[in-house]
């Protein structure tokens, strides 16, 4: 089964890195979609089938907090797993995002193996041992 994954981050460079890790870790991906902020992400989510959202928090227009809330409040989107990837390493932020409905939280910087592990946890399956 091929998974469609949406990567949301206002840094194009970070989106490229995350997409590269996804490709290397061996997850069977269908479409690797991108968005630069929460508003763009919602447009993608309402027009494409997405199996997992990976999102930053600090973004213009609509931040990651608002995006998670919007996803959880939308009956068509509420079941999509959300993984947060953020520079904020504070426990307070992590707890807040999980309370809002995120399914996982990784802080930057991250080891590729950490991201790979979370991908497999949320999508199902065993991590590739490439890392």
């Amino acid at each position, binding site marked *: 089964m091929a998974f469609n994954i949406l990567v949301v981050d206002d840094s194009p460079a970070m989106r*490229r*890195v995350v997409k590269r890790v996804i490709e290397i870790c061996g997850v069977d991906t269908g479409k690797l979609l991108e968005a630069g902020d929460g508003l763009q992400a919602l447009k993608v989510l309402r027009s494409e089938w997405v199996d997992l959202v990976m999102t930053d928090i600090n973004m213009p227009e609509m931040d990651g907090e608002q995006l998670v809330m919007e996803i959880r409040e939308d009956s068509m989107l509420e079941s999509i797993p959300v993984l947060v990837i953020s520079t904020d*390493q504070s426990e307070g932020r992590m707890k*807040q995002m999980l309370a809002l409905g995120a399914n996982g939280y990784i802080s930057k910087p991250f080891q590729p193996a950490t991201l790979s592990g979370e991908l497999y946890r949320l999508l199902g399956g065993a991590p590739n041992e490439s890392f």
Partner: protein
Amino acid sequence: MKASDVAVLIPAACKEVLNAMYFTDVLAETPQEDTHEGVPSIVQSYAFALKFSGDVSGRFGLCLEHGTARRLAANFLGEDETDIAEGDVIEVVGELTNMFCGSAVSQIESGTKFVLSHPQPVQQLPAASSEDLIFVGMETDSGPITTWVVVDKAGAHREN
């Protein structure tokens, strides 16, 4: 909290970021300074800065020579140095600024949230005047990197 209190967190934070995502080692650190006399000319460098706010507020920036930036970008993106567009190098430097600051500020108080502004290119380094400013430099196996931190005076952020 003073800039020197934040500055002591920077080397370990930068090392963590560089090792994990830029596959780069820190070889040496330079002592904290409140002037930029030892910083490479910004003319041949990329420099970015952002604002952070939370329990402590201020600004964070970094400056690195073009060659260093290109090597780091190649490591970050997993591509050959010669294949990377300058625009991509600049984006990577911005992201590096973001991660350095986020990693350092996260250590100030683990239970407190903070907000970072989007990194922006800057044309000049901050000057030590009435601001609480510290420069922290390091030598890496990709080249030298200089960071700086300014901590707002107590109450200053409430006036903004």
